[in-house]
């Protein structure tokens, strides 16, 4: 078992672009069942032996896809999400960074009223080592095992996972929820899935400044989690009112500081480390 990666028939929206094409090959090599791609106006083409369709609706009709990974540019990404949701895609993973916030507010609301689950935007997606990769998490850093990893960032996550693997601590599923202020799936959603997954024994949660996702997660950990949670919150040294790379990583009006998140997580019983390289020490 693992979370979210079972029985995925995956479409790539924006498959004919440079990134879309590159990652289609990577995902395919990782064992993912890529059934096709969508690029409006490019229907009938083939990329890495997979058929390209003009619309998600058509692609779903032909391939019975249930999952979509979105690589289209920020100006068109919101539209791509609507299209996937309207075509009945169950799991929509949006890799794209830089979607305007007002677009995302509407998308966020629309997805909530639908049957679909959105991961991201501005996220690396999901990897279950040895099973499937639906996103851009580098497959070679991971190894199969029982630690669930959930994070708001990319490279930091790969680094932490790589360190775990080098110490023979494998992972059940690695999931990046995204660095934007509005994301479709929250820490709580993922914690709940890991808690219910018999294949996950411990959880690593990588948070950062901005918003209150980690505070909400702390409340959930205190109330519901029986599994061990080890956490690192990035940005203790970040100045206030500056956007630290991610659109969502900003301390505004004194809210969303690393200090308050660390305190809430610690009070909830999570183990807090101040150096991400020490995470593995807590998992032996």
């Amino acid at each position: 078992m693992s979370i979210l990666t079972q029985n995925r028939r995956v479409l790539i929206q924006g498959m004919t672009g440079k990134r879309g094409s590159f990652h289609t090959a990577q995902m395919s090599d990782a064992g993912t069942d890529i059934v096709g791609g969508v690029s409006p106006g490019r229907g009938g083409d083939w990329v890495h032996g997979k058929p390209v369709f003009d619309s998600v609706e058509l692609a779903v009709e032909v391939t019975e896809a249930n999952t979509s990974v979105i690589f289209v540019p920020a100006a068109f990404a919101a539209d791509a999400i609507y299209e996937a949701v309207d075509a009945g895609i169950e799991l929509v993973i949006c890799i794209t960074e830089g979607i305007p916030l007002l677009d995302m507010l509407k998308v966020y609301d629309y997805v909530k009223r639908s049957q679909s689950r959105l991961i991201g935007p501005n996220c690396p997606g999901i990897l279950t080592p040895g099973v499937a990769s639906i996103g851009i998490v580098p497959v070679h850093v991971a190894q199969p095992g029982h630690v669930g990893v959930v994070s708001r960032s990319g490279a930091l996550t790969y680094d932490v996972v790589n360190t775990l693997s080098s110490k023979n601590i494998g992972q059940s599923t690695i999931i990046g929820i995204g660095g934007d202020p509005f994301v479709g799936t929250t820490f709580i959603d993922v914690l709940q899935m890991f808690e219910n997954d018999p294949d996950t024994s411990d959880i690593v949660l990588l948070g950062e400044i901005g918003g209150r996702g980690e505070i909400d997660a702390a409340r959930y950990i205190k109330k519901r989690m029986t599994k061990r949670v080890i956490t690192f919150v990035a940005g203790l040294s970040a100045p206030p009112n500056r956007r630290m790379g991610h659109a969502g990583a900003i301390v505004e009006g004194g809210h969303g500081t690393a200090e308050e998140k660390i305190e809430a997580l610690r009070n909830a019983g999570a183990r807090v480390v101040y150096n991400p390289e020490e995470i593995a020490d807590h998992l032996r």
Partner: protein
Amino acid sequence: MRLKSYQVKRRLAQFGIRITEDEPPEAAISLYLGIGQDRSIGKLALVGSTERDIQIDYAVKSSPGAFHREDIDPLIGLRSYQVLRMAGDLNLPRPLYRPLDKIAQAMYNCYIASDATILEINPFLIAPDNQLFPMAAKMTVDDNALFRQRDLAESLELSPDEVEIKAMGITYIQLDGQIGCIANGAGLAMATMDIINLYGQGNARPANFLDVGGGADAGKIERALHKLQENTDIQITLINIFGGMTRCDEVAEGIINICQRQPLAWPLVVRLRGTNAQLGQQMIIDACLPDVRLADTMTHAALIAVDKVVTS
């Protein structure tokens, strides 16, 4: 991005709101109106108050009694009844209800059309004859939306250097420490700063935040190092790369190129992990650069950097 005052005025004027330039009227009531985003619930909120010192960040995120708040459904927009309810709660004179609705709707339309994140009019002065006078306004807009708000981009007032860096996908924020930092990814860049602070214990601190972004090549690493050379407080620079899309051999090439062209003003400590890490490390070893040290872990790299600052 915060807009210049003339731009705010121009934008508001397009929606029929004129900021009063004349002598303020003898006011009976002073009113605050603001629209902002609440990240925790994914909605916009209209906030009103008759108190003077309201902070929208605070008002949108909590709800004590000093102000009135209405959540706005992003798919439906601001409803008139919500503005009327606010007017009632704030005990405004009844003849003001409809004029206030008109102005709140205009603010909302301006907010949406401008891709704003915050729009505040503070204060409105209300004269005894119930005339509304908007006296001052503030607006910040979403950096992600600048591609469709081109006329607002001039508020950024970036230097050519900053424009170039931004166009390359590099995020740079100057701080006041002694250790230059270069990393890929926002999370890793923050973690690098945090670890320096952790081991620096107040004696050594990061000099900057610098995220070279995804898929960094030799040119971006050179540009980043070039940027840090402007900061004369730096005593050593730590490069921390975890290669996914980024290839560590490309990073090494950038480091070697700049060091061979002209010696840097400070030593480098370099940690390369992930895609082609061994190749990158070997390239740096083979280049025999006198002032470049390799480190295996972030911790080791940070300790080397901190030691350099503390002992010099």
